[in-house]
């Protein structure tokens, strides 16, 4: 029986389409208190006084909590390994508010309506402070976001709160200035990326209750249940053993649920009132009060010789982490560490910069995690360099890019907040990806442009990308397999399925090893009381890290059942053959059903349980080439995408259809960031695009066709040769589309999103010049 690398339907799609209760708010206790937050209307203020008397006087309002009601323990909402690389710069509630939507007070009441009424009746007096709304003016601004005591970095990350700096970093290979001076051609350009919103369909939700043992039990729409438990325990001073966090079905995450959101508040309410409580974020809260992607500015300098040898890359980055430094340093570093090694033959490369605080909605984890920002800057700059040199963008990349068996010094230098891990690219089919991509898009006929009728210009463009597979020596996954009577297995994983299909592919890995059917594996994810440790669904780690853990657990279970069969036949385990169904030794046979029934009911009874753990010693990058064929209407700037070609090397695809779904979903999310999704602030610091009406995402009509293929690739260290595939798809659209627009109409847009208006404005200005 073969399950790996086959197109098995996801194990949960059917039940979810039937609408069976599975998501956080479907699993709320009856008669739960409704919890809502009073949020700041100001971008920067100090709370002088809060009076909740009138709210508390309402019949049915149970509780109002303010910053005086919480222990003053600083923490970070970021769900990361411990100690976190994010500064502890937040309090559950604070006397300062630092962005529109920041938390002021927490209300618990019997109904939603009562909660809303109570929020209106809380009287707050603010002292307004000067907001910092321009991240390029944040460093050493007279207005300081975090003047308070009691905040800290967990290890050195360049944290300088008095200068509005959340983190800083610098690395250099060789001498960049000297190398650039020697280059025949140097191009410079600055690029800007915006604060994309995750906009997962299920808003953040959490509910809490005390169980019959008096323990706090949370059901939370989270990507990181064990981090939620740890951070709750440390911050609210509840023993870890008294907290249980259950991750039910999650309606999309994309990194947006890799942090604590309402968990602190429902926990505080339930601990105080002893009553169950529930919280569901409004869509406005999702936009204004969770977090977005880090907006960044890149100052790029590339140096090359006229023959097309890339010699030096210099990259200064300024990143805007908003009010709190969640994932500040790590997203910043990934903008270099998972981008710059693409061009590994340079003599010198520098990557440095700062992450600033501003009075914007915080930034945090988001699929791509810095790599999409860095890819837009680098791959746009490469095309600019290529055009300056008068060379072909494909040939230039083929000459200078990473190839199988090669390495980059950056891997050893840059990790996520710490030093990195040296590694060689044992699997890298980037050359194949580029070559196949050219064929699929018909590059040779179409490059750079074909004029169609009237005002329409058609062009092609491309970019290459890499990502990672988990964080080496940090991201840990574990899996437990339990054999049941009748011969089927429970697979318990801490890995968190958030819609990406990890329950399915982890079951496939177990079924492949145990040679059983998918129906014989019952997956459960995840519950801090029942499932083994796993850092969670982030950093493209599930297939590679958790998948390896499942592989190990299944190998051990396989050895265990063979040993038991050998015992039955009184032979050496080596003498047993097993096909997933039947154990045989010579003429003697016993089925797995018979064996397990015997184990639990009849003879020498015992429970068989196998656990496997894995922590990566490297992070093998998936690679891809993204190519786009599009139209630009020169009179209106409107872009229409005909075809987006992705050729991806993610090692073995455990489930080709689900892998394709990861790539295509990410491509379209990347197209959204490239063309439509904006996050602008009013002069008074309010986020303008704060609803699904104003925040424009790709629609069903935005892209005519997605063409997705996978390279034949095998990563030896991965389960059945697999690498990760969750993030890689999002990286190429910004640069590929910017490059195609340049090829079509001759203007280069250097700030995202590339709206029709920006293209039209650039064309108008270009027309006026000529």
């Amino acid at each position: 029986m073969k399950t790996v690398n086959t197109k098995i339907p996801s194990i949960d799609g059917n039940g979810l389409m039937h609408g069976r209760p599975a998501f956080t708010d479907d699993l709320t206790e009856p008669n739960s208190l409704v919890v809502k937050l009073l949020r700041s209307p100001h971008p920067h203020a100090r709370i002088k006084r809060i009076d909740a008397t009138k709210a508390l006087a309402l019949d049915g309002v149970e509780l109002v909590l303010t910053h005086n009601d919480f222990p003053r323990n600083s923490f970070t909402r970021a769900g990361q390994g411990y100690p976190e690389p994010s500064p502890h710069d937040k309090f559950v509630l604070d006397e300062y508010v630092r962005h529109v939507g920041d938390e002021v007070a927490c209300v618990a009441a019997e109904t939603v309506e009562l909660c809303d009424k109570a929020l209106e009746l809380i009287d707050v007096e603010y002292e307004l402070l000067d907001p910092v709304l321009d991240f390029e003016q944040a460093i050493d601004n007279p207005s300081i976001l975090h003047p308070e005591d009691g905040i800290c970095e967990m290890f050195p990350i360049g944290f300088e709160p008095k200068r509005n700096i959340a983190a800083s970093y610098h690395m250099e290979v060789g001498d960049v200035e000297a190398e650039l001076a020697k280059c025949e051609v140097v191009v410079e350009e600055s690029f800007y990326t915006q604060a994309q919103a995750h906009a997962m369909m299920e808003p953040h939700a959490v509910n809490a209750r005390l169980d019959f043992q008096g323990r706090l039990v949370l059901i939370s729409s989270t990507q990181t249940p064990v981090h939620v438990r740890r951070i709750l325990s440390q911050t609210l001073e509840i023993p870890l053993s008294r907290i249980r966090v259950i991750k039910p079905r999650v309606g999309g995450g994309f990194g947006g649920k890799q942090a604590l959101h309402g968990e602190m508040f429902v926990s505080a309410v339930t601990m105080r009132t002893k009553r169950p409580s529930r919280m569901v974020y409004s869509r406005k809260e999702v936009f204004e009060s969770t977090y977005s992607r880090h907006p960044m500015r890149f100052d790029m300098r590339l140096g090359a010789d006229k023959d097309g040898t890339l010699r030096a890359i210099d990259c200064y980055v300024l990143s805007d982490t908003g009010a709190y430094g969640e994932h500040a340093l790590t997203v910043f570093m990934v903008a270099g560490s998972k981008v710059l090694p693409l061009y590994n033959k340079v003599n010198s490369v520098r990557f440095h910069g700062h992450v600033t605080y501003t009075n914007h909605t915080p930034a945090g984890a988001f699929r791509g995690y810095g790599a999409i920002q860095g890819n837009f800057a680098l791959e746009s700059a490469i095309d600019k360099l290529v055009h300056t040199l008068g060379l072909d963008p494909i040939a230039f990349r083929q000459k200078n890019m990473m190839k199988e068996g090669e390495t980059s010094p950056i891997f050893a230098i840059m990790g996520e907040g710490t030093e990195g891990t040296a590694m060689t690219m044992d699997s890298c089919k980037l050359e194949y990806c580029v070559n196949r991509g050219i064929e699929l898009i018909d590059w040779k006929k179409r490059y750079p442009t074909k004029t169609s009728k009237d005002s329409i210009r058609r062009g092609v463009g491309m970019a290459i990308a890499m990502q990672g597979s988990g964080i080496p020596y940090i991201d840990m996954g574990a899996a437990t397999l339990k054999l049941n009577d009748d011969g089927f297995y429970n697979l318990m994983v801490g890995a968190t399925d958030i819609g990406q299909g990890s329950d399915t592919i982890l079951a496939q890995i177990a079924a492949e090893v145990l040679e059983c059917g998918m129906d014989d594996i019952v997956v459960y994810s995840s519950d801090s009381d029942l499932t083994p440790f796993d850092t969670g669904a982030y950093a493209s780690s599930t297939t590679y890290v958790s998948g390896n853990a499942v592989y190990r657990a299944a190998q051990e279970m396989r050895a265990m059942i063979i040993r038991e069969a050998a015992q039955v036949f009184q032979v050496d385990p080596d003498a047993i053959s097993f096909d997933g169904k039947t154990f045989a030794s010579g003429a003697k046979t016993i089925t797995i059903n018979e064996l397990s029934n015997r184990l639990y009911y009849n003879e020498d009874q015992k429970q068989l349980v196998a656990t496997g753990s894995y922590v990566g010693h490297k992070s093998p990058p998936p690679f891809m080439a993204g190519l786009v064929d599009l139209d630009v209407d020169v009179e209106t700037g409107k872009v229409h995408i005909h075809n987006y070609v992705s050729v991806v090397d993610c090692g073995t695809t455990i489930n080709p259809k689900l892998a394709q779904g990861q790539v295509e979903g990410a491509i379209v999310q990347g197209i959204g960031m490239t063309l439509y999704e904006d996050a602008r602030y009013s002069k008074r610091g309010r986020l303008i695009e704060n609803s699904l009406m104003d925040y424009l995402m790709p629609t069903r009509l935005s892209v005519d066709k997605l063409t997705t293929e996978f390279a034949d690739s095998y990563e030896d260290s991965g389960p059945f040769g697999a690498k990760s595939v969750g993030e890689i798809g999002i990286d190429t659209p910004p640069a590929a589309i910017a490059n195609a627009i340049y090829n079509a109409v001759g203007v280069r847009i250097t700030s995202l999103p590339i709206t029709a208006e920006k293209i039209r404005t650039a064309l108008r200005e270009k027309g006026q010049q000529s």
Partner: protein
Amino acid sequence: MRINELIQPTSIEEAYALLQEHEDAKIAGGTLWMRLGQHDVERLIVLDGLGLDTITETNDDISIGAMVTLRQLETNPIIQTHLNGMLSRAAGSIMGVQVRNLATIGGSVIGNYSFSDIIPVLAVMDTTLVFHHQGEVPLDLFLSKRLSEPDILVAIRIRKQEGRGTVHKISRTELDFALLNVAVTHTDRWRIAIGSRPAGAAMATNAMAHLDQADRIDDQTIATAVELAMEEIKLSSNAKASQAYRRDLLSAHLRRALNEVK
């Protein structure tokens, strides 16, 4: 937004009497916009089941009940054929089918929203609004001044015309509001309305007159009409688009629209 009382009258007369009696009463359309408002509604009068949800035609007129949904406009054969189905297309361009099954033409018109995709199209047709008390009011009169007293919009009446029509809704995505609406009809005369400027629909009177007076409609006539429209139509900036970009859109799309219907 809270609604404290929901009233379902059994006749329009009764609804009208309630509206006169209670200053705080409001008439419901599809309640899509009302739901998003900040203000509580004391009394909401709904006109369901009063026969206002049909589209009928005579030799001269098309009459659209105020409670006809945008989806009905989109799929009705009468609307689909009149003036190249431009009203049907305008209705079909609004949000998803789930919204269009709720939103009513009465709500779209009476709200007089500056971003309306429907009003510019009605403005280039020969449209009157039929009120329960005041009777027929020409659309342009309604758009130019507020209702003098509370009344109930019963129907939208469009005089049938031979000719051609088109509408260009320019938006950033298919689910967005318009950055600009360009509606043109060419019947026994020309009519051009520009909506979402971002202010409400305005007629390009000089451009219309130029086209009406022209002996033949060629590229030059159209170019001059576009120039005249650019001069007379006031465009401005908002968060969705700048004034300069709206000028580019008007220039390109009005030329294209005029060419389609010449």
